């Protein structure tokens, strides 16, 4: 283990678990649905941040792995009767396998070429989801039945909420470990300078491939959790809009930091709900306000909200999480 690991993250995980069991007793399903969605996006965004913020790879295939996770777990359940608890790990592993196949050529590319190649893969994946009618039902979409976890039928947001909290807690713990492991240090070194990392004995290509695969596994897992509380999927759910949404969460919150990503997920995830409450005459301005917030955030908070918070209030002690984000600095050198 590298770096300081305080008790605070573990307290946060315990609070998350406690809320996972308490909030379903208190809140209407609408809020629980929002909570489930945010937890799913948190897993997805953390996976993207592993690649973007921690290893400095400007790759956009993430949404394709998310789609692979959704369709794999949904199809395993619908066609083969594979239970959720088995189907989701398989979906995550399958996304990781596809990630490996993509990573081997993709990690030879850098900067804008990597971005374009991975974006092309994401577009191809969406085209396959749309065109492969016999398997994915194309644009008509797939209706997903409620998963059953050892007899616990997850038919509602209320019942899905504790399960989502447990999955997110496990993801956070694994992420805490990962980012403080030798691999985490190597990723940071590659992000800061591939040449220096290479000169220090780090196998840059191998490490980048591992980051790519792990990122795909997180995305596949997020896709698997989608089938926990959503009853329908079609290719529109895994398009450019979702990719931009997740990217925004990471950049606005603060890439290269778990806290930053979680802040971004909550703020950007809930922003449409706050804007929804705007007077009816202002509804057509929603997109404008949304864009304005993004522009201002990028201009005045290049390290995201978490970076701003740290520079204003946090202790002067340098932390790896607070290092400038890849998105803010531009592509890795």
């Amino acid at each position, binding site marked *: 283990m590298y770096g300081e690991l305080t008790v605070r993250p573990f307290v946060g995980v315990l609070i998350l678990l406690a809320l996972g069991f308490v909030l379903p007793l208190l809140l*209407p399903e*609408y809020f629980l649905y929002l909570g489930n969605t945010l937890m799913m996006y948190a897993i997805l965004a953390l996976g993207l941040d592993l690649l973007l913020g921690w290893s400095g790879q400007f790759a956009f295939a993430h949404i394709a792995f998310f789609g692979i996770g959704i369709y794999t777990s949904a199809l395993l359940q619908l066609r083969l009767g594979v239970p959720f608890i088995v189907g989701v790990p398989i979906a995550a592993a399958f996304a990781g396998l596809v990630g490996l196949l993509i990573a081997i050529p993709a990690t030879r590319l850098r900067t804008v070429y990597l971005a374009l190649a991975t974006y092309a893969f994401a577009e191809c994946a969406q085209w396959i989801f749309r065109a492969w009618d016999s398997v994915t039902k194309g644009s008509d979409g797939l209706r997903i039945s409620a998963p059953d976890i050892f007899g616990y039928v997850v038919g509602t947001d209320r019942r899905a909420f504790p399960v989502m909290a447990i999955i997110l807690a496990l993801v956070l713990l694994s992420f805490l470990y990962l980012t403080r492991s030798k691999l985490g240090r190597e990723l940071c070194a590659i992000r800061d300078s591939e040449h220096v990392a290479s000169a220090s004995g780090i196998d840059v290509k191998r490490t980048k491939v591992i980051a790519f695969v792990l990122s795909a596994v997180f995305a596949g897992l997020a896709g698997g959790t989608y089938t926990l509380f*959503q009853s329908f999927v079609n290719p529109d759910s895994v398009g450019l809009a979702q990719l931009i949404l997740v990217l925004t969460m990471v950049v606005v919150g603060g890439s290269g930091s778990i806290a930053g990503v979680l802040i971004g997920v909550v703020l950007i995830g809930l922003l449409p709900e706050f804007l929804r409450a705007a007077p009816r005459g202002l509804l057509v*301005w929603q997109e404008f306000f949304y864009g304005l917030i993004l522009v201002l955030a990028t201009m005045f908070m290049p390290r995201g909200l978490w970076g701003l918070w740290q520079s204003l209030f946090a202790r002067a002690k340098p932390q790896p999480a607070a290092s400038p984000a890849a998105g803010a600095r531009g592509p890795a050198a």
Partner: protein
Amino acid sequence: MDWLKGVKASLIGAAAALAIASPGVAADPGLTDTEITIGLFGPLSGPLVGFGLDPVNAARMWYQEANKKGGIHGRKIKLVIEDDKCTANDVVTVVKKLVTVDNVFMLHGGSCTAALTAAQEYINREKVPYSMLNAAGDNAVIPPLKYTFGAFHGTQRVYAAALAGYAIKELKVKRAAIIVHDDDYGNANLATTRAILEAAKVEVVAAERIPANITDVTAPLLKIRAARPDVILSGAYPAPAVLIAQKYGEYGMTSIPLMQAVQGIPTPAVFARNVGNPAALTNFYHGWSFTDVGDEAIKKKYADIYKSHYPDREAGPFMITGLPSAMAVVEALEKAGRNLTRESFVAAMESLDFKPEILAGPLQFGKDRRDGMRSGFVVKYDGKTQKMMPGVYTWNGKDGL
């Protein structure tokens, strides 16, 4: 322990009094002695706002008109209006908010079928009556779901049947080309068009499927031109429909009638302006389900009502698409009577059979039928004037006319 007996008696008495004095206790959500709360939603922002803003306004206007007349069996309609942006995530979010936070009696909304399909499982599980607003995709209503009622101005099957029927009957075509999108709209449109044409021994010489975000239709139009059809039947959306008409004009194909389903031409004047070539519209037809094109009096009547409710806004051509569903809801609420429940409303919708003056055909549902309207017209449009063509074409509910 006399005091305890006294407390117990008081509690029993209070409980009995509450039970007698609160007839609304057992009522369905969103229903009081004086109000029926309806959750109304549609795209009020975002790129597809054109499909929802006027229709939502029109539905609201119709409910306000019902309230002006004293409400329905003594109850006024109260609306909670939400913006669904025509995306699946937003539709599900809005629906869950309306049902669990605003506690509405029923839902009324949706202009995009693919998006609203995402909420259908939840709506039916919660047994909330749901009337679609103006979405016209087939998947939401075929196969039928108990609590969902829709297709108030037709489905893709209906639009396809009208265009294909006119091409066979009036244009006497023998060879037809079809161009549709590679999505649920396109699938339904293509299957119905092909079935009707083949039943009439019309050869389908080209069937092109294009993505909704296509930016160049050169290849599919060249293939169609090479196939030498007698008619081109298009199920494209607005932007691709413009591209198709432009390329069709540019290639000098105007001796072949071009027939466009209604979703591609939401505002005819805007369509003509975007095509930018009057010659491309010399042999152009489009589908429609409303009588406002052929009947100026009807058009003026509803435009005037709209103006009286929204003095600052001019009604667009899609305004009228928000009315049939609101008319059906008001009709069913009347039919369900004063002892209204969600189940009695569903039963009233199921037995609905009436023809609003604005529609080409009657609105009918049934135990196994959730698509309300099955008739359509064909309109000839030259870029300036719309002319209703003879005949009403009615889809038979199976595979043809």
